[in-house]
């Protein structure tokens, strides 16, 4: 077993060197690996033909289909007696491990034990669109719909720049529930990504020559704004209560959740001005302003823009964030509630990168493996961390 551990550590140092583009010559040989072995490994990681070969082989493997086959095989008992033996074993396993995965009665068939869908799933693309007449449409990634002003397909709603001029601006609302996300292209080409638990109010068509105004009622949105130069010099404004952002063709992230008392504006590219209570603050790229709603103080600092905005690309990234904050983010995406039994655990800070499509259980297992928590318990949609 120690040999295996050494192989893993060795693999890790190779992976590290490879990514850095550093030469592998510096790697120390050992009783496990000679120079020849290192060359062989190196070749297998960079030779185009070998990589292609591996890629083609991977395509012949359908992991999900094969797992289903396994489930079926495992549920077909060789004899009735054997099935009972296995069912009893599962019951014991559940009690001993003290991790409650399902609250259903245990004399389920073997197959159900493996099959049982999670009460907790990662989020998906879903939203509710409220039209100008108040009617609501539920949207998900499979929705395909065309209205007078918009085309809904895939994970996006695209508003067209219909030639009909409107005398008064009509608004639509896009509401994202917990466990959802969606993106939208406004009639001027501005792209907006909306995170879980967010609501955006916007006109179905911007009137030419007048300022373009949208409102983030609550939640988190990433804006890629169509430049002023392409919109007859019309400014773009994002309102949120008393906090207004004036934009000059740019990319930024605005975060203001209902259950938090801070408004975060992160500038990726371009220039924005934040207007709050008659004070103006200009932001430069890679800066983030935080408005504390308790004392109305606004502070600006440099941040890791990637960590603040990677959510729109399917990754959660945390730079030195306390576990309770990490859990708050996860709870919106998985639509769960997280309870800490010890407050010192929730304050521990971490760096992390997580794929958003991951299973919540694998995340919790990792945290447990690092001895950060002793145990976790899943009860329906609530997770208790001990």
């Amino acid at each position, binding site marked *: *077993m120690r040999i295996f551990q050494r192989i893993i550590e060795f693999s*890790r140092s190779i992976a590290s060197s490879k*990514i850095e583009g550093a030469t592998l010559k510096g790697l120390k040989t050992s009783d496990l690996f000679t120079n020849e072995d290192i060359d062989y490994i190196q070749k297998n990681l*960079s030779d185009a033909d070998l990589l292609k070969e591996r890629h083609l082989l991977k395509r012949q493997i359908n992991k999900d289909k094969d797992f289903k086959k396994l489930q079926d095989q495992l549920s077909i008992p060789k004899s009735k007696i054997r099935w009972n033996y296995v069912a009893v*074993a599962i019951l014991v396993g559940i009690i001993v491990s003290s991790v409650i*995965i399902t609250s259903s009665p245990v004399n389920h068939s073997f197959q159900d034990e493996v099959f049982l869908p999670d009460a907790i799933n990662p989020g998906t693309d879903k939203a509710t669109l409220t039209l100008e007449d108040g009617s609501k449409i539920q949207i998900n990634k499979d929705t395909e719909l065309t209205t007078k002003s918009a085309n809904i397909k895939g994970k996006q709603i695209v508003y067209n720049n219909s030639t009909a001029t409107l005398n008064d601006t009509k608004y639509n609302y896009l509401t994202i529930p917990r466990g959802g996300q969606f993106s939208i292209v406004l009639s001027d080409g501005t792209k907006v990504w909306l995170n879980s638990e967010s609501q955006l109010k916007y006109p179905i068509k911007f009137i030419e020559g007048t300022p373009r105004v949208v409102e983030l009622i609550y939640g988190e949105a990433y804006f890629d704004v169509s430049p002023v130069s392409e919109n007859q010099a019309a400014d773009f404004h994002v309102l949120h209560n008393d906090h207004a952002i004036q934009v000059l063709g740019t990319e930024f992230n605005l975060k203001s959740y209902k259950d938090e008392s801070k408004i975060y504006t992160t500038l990726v590219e371009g220039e924005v001005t934040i207007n709050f209570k008659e004070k103006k603050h200009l932001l430069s790229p890679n800066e983030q302003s935080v408005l504390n709603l308790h004392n109305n103080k606004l502070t600006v600092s440099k941040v890791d823009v990637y960590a603040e905005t990677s959510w729109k690309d399917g990754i959660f990234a945390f730079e030195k964030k306390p576990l309770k904050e990490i859990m708050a983010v996860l709870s919106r995406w998985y639509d769960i509630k997280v309870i800490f039994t010890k407050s010192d655990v929730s304050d521990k800070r971490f760096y992390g990168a997580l794929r958003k499509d991951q299973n919540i259980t694998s*995340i919790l297992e990792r945290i447990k493996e690092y001895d950060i928590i002793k145990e976790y318990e899943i009860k329906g949609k609530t997770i208790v961390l001990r």
Partner: protein
Amino acid sequence: MLSAKEFKTLFDQKYVPLCLFTNKYINDIEVSKDIVQDVFIKIWAKKITFRDKNCIHSYLYKSVKNKSLDYLKSSRYKFSEALSDHDMARLESDSYFYREIAVIETSDMIDDAINTLPKKCAQIIRLSMKGLTNLSVAEELEISHNTVKAQKKIAYRRLKPLLGGIYMMGLVFISTLSNFNL
């Protein structure tokens, strides 16, 4: 013993790499898949208990190797293909075993790490790893040479903790030392 969830997670993480590894012995992907599936079935059906993650992975590799060698020595296989004594000895050797594990594990680690990067950045890193110079990467992706350099820097900063620290698929937690009682 593994819970149903832990079993599925293990399968999700290790099934494909193990099939590729087994194929290094069998050179037939369909048979390789069968062998790996048999090993997973055994883990579940016999309710095997493991002390930690390394134990599970080590067991998986050893099991598929043993099953593969059994298959290659079976009369069925020998009838149609048959390996020379020399080839057989090579496959039975520890060094072949360790080497192939390293290839599979390393490529998995690299893929998982790169998958946490934004698309463009990931593309740049993958091309660089193939041996392309910054200039060639810039040409290939139609971006500036400086962008390539800058993106690579960002990527290394981001990936260093993933690979330098305790690494697990898709997730890394490195707590700041002051908060950890070591």
